[in-house]
């Protein structure tokens, strides 16, 4: 506590605090504008700026849920929200699941070609995913995977695995070797060691990888557009919102409400799992 009150230190940290405040403002102000606009009447939106609500912030009558009802029902965003969930949750779960097995193998099992294989997997990160569309799409249509949920789960899993494997690996490689020796003497097979020791210890790393991967898939437009097409029964939020911009570009009240619908879940995920987020950022660099 003493150091925090030390005036010299406080002065020395002013530039840091200012930078943080500026960055926070750059992010928060448009988001706030988005949120307020999404609850306002179309005529009000056209007439006055969102900041004009501030003098009478809490007086009734100027907000309504109409815009949300409009996008969710009228524009079918409710279905898209569900589609986004159907795409993101399994795709994230599958890739985290496979990545944890792969990472354990690469980190702790002895087999020929382990290093080369690991380098290959990690090296795949440098390949831009756009390069893969043309060779993969014909295969997808032959296998009738295009436009289906399993098809996009597979695609997201494949694109996500190099990074997720790498992140989980760097955590698992930091688990002390003695723990594995101890498990071997206790009589645990490699699979038992994995389930009963490695996985419980790796929960923070797995959680952060899950969050990153989930957000990436949730916000993805390109992969969904290419492998799923824009059919409303399968299109996720990102695709539907992109369509909305094309079709209803003038209707700000709908666009802002739609944008907030797509932000809602990531915000909930972020705030409820903040501590894993921070740990996850550190996962690659600092052990633990």
């Amino acid at each position, binding site marked *: 506590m003493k150091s925090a009150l030390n005036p010299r230190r406080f002065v020395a940290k002013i530039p840091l605090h200012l930078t943080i405040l500026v960055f926070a403002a750059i992010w928060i102000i448009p988001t706030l504008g988005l949120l307020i606009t999404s609850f306002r009447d179309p005529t009000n939106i056209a007439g006055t700026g969102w900041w004009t609500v501030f003098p009478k912030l809490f007086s009734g009558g100027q907000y309504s849920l109409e815009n949300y009802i409009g996008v969710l029902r009228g524009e079918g965003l409710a279905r898209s929200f569900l589609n986004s969930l159907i795409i993101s949750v399994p795709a994230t779960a599958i890739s985290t699941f496979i990545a944890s097995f792969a990472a354990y193998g690469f980190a702790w099992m002895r087999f020929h070609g382990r290093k080369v294989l690991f380098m290959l997997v990690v090296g795949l990160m440098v390949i831009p995913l756009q390069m893969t569309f043309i060779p993969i799409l014909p295969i997808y249509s032959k296998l009738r995977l295009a436009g289906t949920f399993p098809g996009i789960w597979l695609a997201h899993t494949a694109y996500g695995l190099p990074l997720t494997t790498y992140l989980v690996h760097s955590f698992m490689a930091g688990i002390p070797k*003695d723990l594995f*020796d101890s498990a071997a003497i*206790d009589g645990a097979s490699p699979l038992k060691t994995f389930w009963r020791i490695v996985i419980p210890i790796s929960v923070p790393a797995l959680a952060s990888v899950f969050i990153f991967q989930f957000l990436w898939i949730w916000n993805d437009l390109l992969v969904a557009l290419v492998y799923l097409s824009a059919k409303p029964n399968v299109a996720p939020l990102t695709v539907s919102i992109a369509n909305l911009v094309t079709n209803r570009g003038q209707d700000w009240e709908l666009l802002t409400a739609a944008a907030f619908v797509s932000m809602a879940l990531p915000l909930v995920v972020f705030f409820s799992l903040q501590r894993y987020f921070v740990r996850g950022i550190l996962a690659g660099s600092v052990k633990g």
Partner: protein
Amino acid sequence: MAEVTLTNITKRFGDFTAVQSLDMEIEDGKFTVLVGPSGCGKTTTLRMVAGLEEATEGEIKIGDRVVNRVPPKDRDIAMVFQNYALYPHMDVFNNMAFGLKLRKTPKPQIKERVHEAADLLGITDKLKSKPRELSGGQRQRVAVGRAIVRNPKVFLFDEPLSNLDAKLRVQMRTELEQLHHKLQTTTIYVTHDQVEAMTLGDRIAVMKDGVVQQYAPPQRTYDHPANQFVAGFIGSPAMNFLPAKATTDNGRTVLVGTDYRIVLPPERAKSDLPANVVLGVRPEDLDGPAPGAENAIRMTVSVTEQLGHSLLVYGTVDDAQLVASLDPHRSVAVDSSIDLTVNLETLHVFDPETQETLL
């Protein structure tokens, strides 16, 4: 209970030979300590007994069974690691019960054995705690407890006390001694600390560069070191080594340096000594100051350290460093020259080429 027999064990990692043709018989119920500087192959030897490393050559037997091809879990051994290796997500009870659970031991029996071991180690009130809530000493007790509940034929300890602070180390050392006395289980214990080796071991194996230098009861390694390395490694402060010329005078062996001339008693005479030898004398076998005494070594004092139970005097003789452990009530002035008498019974002579003990 079982004896452990290592026959002609060699372990190579690529071009590096960690352990070279090691032969050792560890008697049933005895406490054997492998001691040596880091990199001497002691931990590798232990890990080969555990089955965590495979021996490149040779045969490992636990009891009557050759275990080279037997996985660690079926060797009926338990191991305690330097950094405890407790499972961080399990409480103390489950840490100790894990091995038993994997062996499908009936639950009531697991409970009984864990509680018995916890009682023995005084950690019963900690059974519900997670490892991170425990102090270093408590963690080490849990690690030992985990080994005990399995009731193995052989205990393996890999530097179990080196992460503890000095005071706790001494306390845990005594506890391990009592534990072994109670359980009488064959134990192999690895350490780099010669005090631990001396106090705990029924027999100790002093290792260097993958080779056992001497395998004997602790007092024997102190009284009759097999070579200069063992002589310098066992004992604290370490044995002094002075270059000397060996000659014979009237049938008696004489060791000569610039600042001393030591005539050995007739019963220790040895005629076939090489001309150049190394004289080894322990600090506690020096006495003085004894001005003008016969068979004395003259030393120039550079530093003195009062320890209460002894006075350590550091100085030089013939450009070599010398330490003497003297009666603490003597007074010795820094920069003075003093004569120190040598205990002729316990003086050692080594070959400077082979380092073997000559006398």
